[in-house]
Structures are given as structure tokens and as C-alpha cells.
């Protein structure tokens, strides 16, 4: 695990490489269409980085993160279109409201375990979805809200996909650094302990409730930020963007990339976003293919792309290293 995540300095080399690649891509693929795909990719990465900390490190499954994604989007849309406030205040509102709601729901929910927690987050998201539909004065009901302005900082407006991408790129890289720092800190180790055995962690003096709530709130804030970036790009918001299907896709991205690995989140969010976009060309068959790929990927790579990748690397290493045949076979069988 340590080698796949990078240790010490090599970790920051990988961050540099990632940031550089993500900065170069829009120069190579510069049409508006590609930039929009890259923006979507960045937004999904931000959300999945947070969800991966919650699921992969703390072991708490949420099937309700579309709610926070939606809360962020609506917070920005309502602040700008209903109250005429500047967009950056809307983004601040997204962070505050998303974080407060998450804290408020996390306190009772995180006492629940396993599938009961998953159900609670799912139920919460369904309630939020109904509120998006029914609080028509605030949210515009099924029609949603239109004419959300692009955010601007000190007179610089992020009003084209290219300019908005700069903002998304920045937030993505910051989120990545944040996730890596948390994963490799005292908090990250505490979260892993909670994942392994909550009782054992508590016995070792880890304040399990506090850490679980903190990481839940953090993941919700990242989802809210993602939502506010999403609405900045498309300019409108409606309830159908925040359904159960979206929550499930986010969870699938975490598992597809490789749970409990920050780079797994990056890979999972990137590959599934690109795959979904690419498959749109197949029209009616697109979701059939997507479902089949998701199933097959899990059957052949139960530990996600990162897991499969590190297995290949270690088997190659074994082949070239001076290890007796039998030891290699034993490893391969386990």
C-alpha cells in the first residue's frame, strides 16, 4: 500500500505530475466540448477524493452524497439568482450550508453501522431531493433555477469553460494535497484504525465519534464545493442532477478506482467520467455497456484499478527479482 501511495518526497512528485498533466490536457484538447468534460472530471475527482476518505479510510459508506452535491449547487444558485449576491459569496454559502447540514446529520447517523448507515444517508438524500422539488419558491421546483452567473474574483470572471477550468484545476489539486495530507497524518491513521475495528480504536484512545464526524463533514464540504462549481459551469440547476443514481455512481467511482487509496479516487473518478462521456455515442446501448463494464471490472478487479495495478507491478517485480519459484507461486495463490 505504501509504495502505491508514494512515500515522503515521491508523493509530492506524483502530485506535481498530476497537476502538470491536468494543466496540459486543456491545451492539447482545447475545444469547448473537451474542456467541459475536463471540468466534469475535475468536479467528480473533488467529490470522490472526499468520499474515498470517508469510505476507504474511515469505512463509513454514504449513498447520499448527491444531496451535498445538490446543496452546494442550490446554495450558489439561490444566493445569486434570488438574492442577487455575488457568486463567491454563494460558494462560501455552499461550503457553510453543506458543512452545517452534514454535521447535523452526521451526529445521529454515524452511530449507525454498515448497511444501516448506508440506508440513513440514502434516506437523507431522498428527503433533500424531495425538498429540491417541493420548496418551489426557493428552488423553482422541477424547472430549477436559471441564469446563475459565473464566479469572479477581483474583477476576473470565470465566465468561459476555459477560465472556469482554471478554478476547477486549482480546487482539484488543493483537494488532492488535502486528502494526501489527511491520509498520511495522525488523523488518517486514526481513521484506518476505526475502519479496522472501531472498538479497538476506541480502546487505543482514538475519539472515534469525533473523527468519523470530521471526515463526514469534510467529504460533504468537498461535495458541496463540487456542486457549486457544477452550477457555475452549466448556469442552471434542477433536481434531476442530484438523484440516487448520482450518489451510487460516486460510490462506484470510489470502488472502481480502489478504495482506501487517494490515487484510487483520482483514477476511479477520471476513468468512469471519461467512460460515461465516451459511451454517450452508443445512445440506447450506452448504459448497457456501462453496466456490463462495471460488473466485469469488479469481477476481474475486485480491489479496483489500483489494486489490479499493484498486483501486476508486484508480479513483474517478482519475476525480475531473485526470488525462488515457490515463494512467487505462494504469493500469487494468496
Amino acid at each position, binding site marked *: 500500500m505504501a509504495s502505491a501511495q508514494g512515500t515522503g518526497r515521491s508523493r509530492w512528485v506524483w502530485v506535481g505530475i498530476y497537476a502538470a498533466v491536468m494543466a496540459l490536457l486543456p491545451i492539447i484538447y482545447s475545444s469547448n466540448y473537451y474542456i467541459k468534460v475536463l471540468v466534469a472530471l475535475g468536479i467528480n475527482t473533488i467529490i470522490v477524493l472526499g468520499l474515498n476518505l470517508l*469510505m476507504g479510510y474511515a469505512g463509513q*459508506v454514504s449513498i447520499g452524497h448527491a444531496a451535498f452535491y445538490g446543496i452546494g449547487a442550490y446554495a450558489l444558485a439561490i444566493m445569486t439568482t434570488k438574492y442577487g449576491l455575488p457568486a463567491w459569496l454563494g460558494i462560501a454559502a455552499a461550503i457553510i450550508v453543506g458543512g452545517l447540514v452534514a454535521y447535523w446529520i452526521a451526529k*445521529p*447517523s454515524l*452511530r*449507525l*453501522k*454498515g*448497511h*444501516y448507515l*448506508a*440506508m*440513513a444517508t*440514502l*434516506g*437523507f438524500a*431522498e*428527503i433533500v431531493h*424531495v*425538498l429540491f*422539488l*417541493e420548496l418551489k419558491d426557493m428552488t423553482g421546483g422541477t424547472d430549477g433555477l436559471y441564469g446563475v452567473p459565473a464566479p469572479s474574483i477581483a474583477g476576473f470572471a470565470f465566465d468561459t469553460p476555459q477560465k472556469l477550468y482554471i478554478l476547477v484545476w486549482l480546487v482539484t489539486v488543493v483537494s488532492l494535497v488535502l486528502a494526501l495530507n489527511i491520509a498520511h497524518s495522525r488523523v488518517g491513521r486514526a481513521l484506518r484504525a476505526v475502519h479496522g*475495528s*472501531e*472498538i*479497538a480504536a476506541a480502546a487505543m484512545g482514538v475519539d472515534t465519534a469525533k473523527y468519523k464526524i470530521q471526515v463526514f463533514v469534510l467529504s460533504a464540504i468537498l461535495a458541496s464545493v463540487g456542486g457549486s462549481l457544477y452550477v457555475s459551469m452549466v448556469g442552471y440547476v434542477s433536481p434531476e442532477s442530484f438523484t*440516487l*443514481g448520482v450518489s*451510487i455512481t460516486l*460510490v*462506484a467511482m470510489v*470502488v*472502481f478506482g480502489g*478504495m482506501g487509496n487517494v490515487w484510487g479516487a483520482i483514477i476511479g473518478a477520471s476513468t468512469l467520467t471519461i467512460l460515461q462521456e465516451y459511451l454517450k455515442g452508443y445512445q*440506447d*446501448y450506452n*448504459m*448497457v455497456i*456501462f*453496466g*456490463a*463494464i*462495471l*460488473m*466485469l*471490472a*469488479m*469481477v476481474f478487479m*475486485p*480491489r479496483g484499478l489500483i489494486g489490479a495495478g499493484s498486483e501486476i507491478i508486484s508480479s513483474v517485480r517478482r519475476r525480475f527479482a531473485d526470488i525462488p519459484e515457490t515463494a512467487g507461486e505462494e504469493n500469487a495463490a494468496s
Partner: protein
Amino acid sequence: MQFDQLLQFIVSGITSGSIYALIALGFTLIYNSTQVINFAQGEFVMLGGLSAVSLHSVLDLPLPAAFLLAVGIVTIVGILFERVAIHPLRNSSIITLIIVTVGASILLKNIAMILWGRDSLTLPAFSGDKPVEILGAYITPQTLWVIGLTTIAVLLLQVFYKRTIVGKAMKACSINQNAAKLMGINTSRIVLLSFAMSAAFGAMAGVLITPISMISYSAGGFLGLKGFAGAVLGGLGNPIGAVVGGVLLGVLESLSIGFISSGYKDAVAFLILLLVLFFKPSGILGSRVKEKV
């Protein structure tokens, strides 16, 4: 609200609740043998309903034959699903298996869209549409079919668990899989059987609901969600809990349509579900979640 109106809402709640109960039982069966939440459960319901429509209207089979054949077809789908995607992963983590069921759900839903199109399809009611008046509430014969057949299915399941050797083996697996294995129970067979039964229960729910609310390729998601909520509300893993949870959820929904508004019915149902979980973290009839140290 008048008494007859209240009764009307309760009856329609029990009807949809019976459907949720059948779906919840499907979740419970698979959960008990694998600890997995099967996100494709709703697709079994949808496939049951749509298959019955085709068998009846295209192949001209009489309704009872279409019903049984549809259940049979979906059972085979459930068996294939288990063999192709679940069995090879029996040693993987539960979340991996859950994502497999998510993939299966997307796959089945969209195959159904290609086969049956996007329109809602319907079946004729099993024995006419003439409502019966009971205490001022009007009850359609289909409602009685739904409640009656669900009751029979639940009773048969209890007999299966208590009186048959396979049923007892299945129960043993749900309590402690390793101990069951040591007693010579073929747990792999039990998992397969649980998928087959779960698919059959789902398909049955689908055929029963189609004459009342029609069915389309996309109906599985919401029906599965209600079934899952019912299973958790009653206490995951407890078949009686699944039935109680499912019916209770249906009645809550129906009453919130009557007392509040139809737009908020899902919100009210889920709010009560959350409150129940906050006060009783393992559902109404669930045993306390034990954690091994």
C-alpha cells in the same frame, strides 16, 4: 378526515406495502446468505412485470400461466446473475459485491429498455375491476389479490424456514455461515437458492403491481429503494421484520398523501425511517448489531 376516507388510505397503503414487503423479503434473503445489499432487486420486480405483459399480450397466454412463467423466467435470471457475477467473487469484500449488483441493475434496466421500449405497459386485473365496498371504503379485487397472495407467500416462507431441511439450513447460514459449513451445509448452494428465491419474490411483486400502477423499464429503481427501506425499517435480516417494515412504509406513505400532500410522501416516509433508526439503530425487529472484538 372521515373514517371511510382514512380506511381507504390505509387499504391502499397496505396494498403498496405488501408489494414493498415482497421486495424487502428479497433483500432479506440475499442479505442473510451473503451480507450483500442487492441493488438489482428492483430490476427483478420490473422484469417480472414486463415479462408477464409480453407473455400475456404477445403470446396470448392466460394470466395465471403468464404469471407463473414470468416468475420462472426471472428466477432463471437471478440464478444466472449469481453464477456469473456473485459466485466468482465470494471471497471479495462486501462493497465490491454491492457495486457488482449496481452494475447488474444498470445492465438489466437498460436491456429492458431496448427490449420493451420506454412506455409504461399494463396487464388486465386478475379478476375484473369491479370494486367491493367494505365499511365505506372501495376495494378493488386486485388489491385483495395483492394482499392475499403476499400473505400466502409469507406464510409459505415461514413453513419453509421452520419445517424443511433446506429452510433450516438456510437459517443456519444466516446465523453463522462458517458453523453451517462445518455442519456439512453446502453454503454455495444456499447462496444460489437465496438469489433464486429473491428473484422469484421480486417477480411476483412485479406481476401483482402491474395491473394497479403499470410498469416500465425504469420502475425498478424506486421499487427497489422502497423494498430496501422496508427491510431496514423492520430490521435487516429478519423476514418478519421485512414484512412489517414494508407494510408500515406503505401505510405511512399512503397516510402522508392523505394528510399532507403527495409531493411529500417520500420525504415523510424517509423522515420516519431516519427517526426510527436514530432511536433504534437496528430497525424495529432487528437484533442489536453485535460487533466482535
